[in-house]
């Protein structure tokens, strides 16, 4: 009786594994490469706006998108022309300022990459990624 129950339980576990294995195979090429941003490293539009003059806005999108439109006062700093743009950004930076980096939307990665380089390579502190990016900025202006 007991061994029958164990067999049945094992059978049920094996059956439950089938869809899991199927999903793992099916989604193996569809894993998201984006890890969530820690809360301490991201900021909402309302928070960033409340910082006022103490915030420096960094646009991590490609040149063409920046030229089309950007957050007023934002400085262009993308990885396409990092070596050229970083000194220009630093001319506007000072230690007491918080850096708010944004890219196109919540799903884009450029703001995370730029923020990471500012923290790791330039060793700047107070670097934050804007939640929702440019899309969210546009929504907040409607």
């Amino acid at each position, binding site marked *: 009786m007991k061994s029958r129950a164990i067999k049945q339980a094992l059978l049920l576990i094996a059956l439950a594994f089938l869809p899991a294995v199927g999903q793992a195979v099916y989604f193996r090429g569809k894993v998201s490469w984006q890890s969530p941003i820690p809360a301490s490293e991201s900021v909402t539009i309302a928070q960033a706006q409340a910082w006022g003059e103490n915030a420096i806005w960094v646009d991590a999108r490609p040149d063409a998108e920046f030229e089309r439109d950007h957050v007023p006062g934002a400085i262009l700093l993308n990885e396409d022309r990092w*070596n050229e743009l970083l000194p220009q950004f*630093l001319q506007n930076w*000072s*230690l007491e300022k918080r850096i708010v980096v944004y890219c196109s939307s919540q799903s884009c*990665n450029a703001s995370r990459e730029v923020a990471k380089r500012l923290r790791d390579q330039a060793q700047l502190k107070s670097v934050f990624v804007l939640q929702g990016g440019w899309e969210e900025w546009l929504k907040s202006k409607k």
Partner: protein
Amino acid sequence: MKTHILAFTLLIFLAAVARAELKWEQTTADLHPGIGDKQAVGHFKYENVGNTPVHFKSVHASCGCTTAQTQKDQVAPGEKGEITATFNIGDRTGLQVKTVTVQTDDPDPAHATAVLTLKTTIPQLLEIQPAVVYWQGGEEPKPKTITVKAAKEFPVKSLKVTSSNPVFQTKVEQTGSGEFKIDVQPAQTAKAAGTTITIQSENSPKSSYATAIVTAGPAPTPASVAR
């Protein structure tokens, strides 16, 4: 009853047979561009292993730095082709993972979307830490040190270092095998100033950069920089 079973079997058979399906040779491309390369290109080959045509609905790259091209809009049964994804390296370094999402009109959602991944390892000849040194306005203009470490596979014997602004002086010293330190010193910190420090090894066509700046204004209090 037999008729029902036959009809059901036939239905399953037809559903399985009348299909359009792109079979990808690979969905991940590992790319290793050389030093100084501006682009890395991945080729994703496919074949329509179904018996109805497949149409591409959209091809969307995960970032503005990547473009993807299909050779055709429609793939006939048995036809082969490839999607070419081009990653513009720019000033990026290290491992870069970018994706291209391909959507087709395949009625089976399991096959309608394919995510193609470009994994590009950009060689970094010199590791520079920190890439930025700065002095607060009025701070004593003492030298600050930037360390440079060459990658093991690229032996570097000497560095050429230049400053774009003569206000900043640089001094290079080798500290070990493939390891150097650059002392940077501003002539003054009374006025805001900045310089781009160009670092070039004898065996690389590509330069690396660091930045030194004197910021305007006095040093902030700890409370003003806390979040």
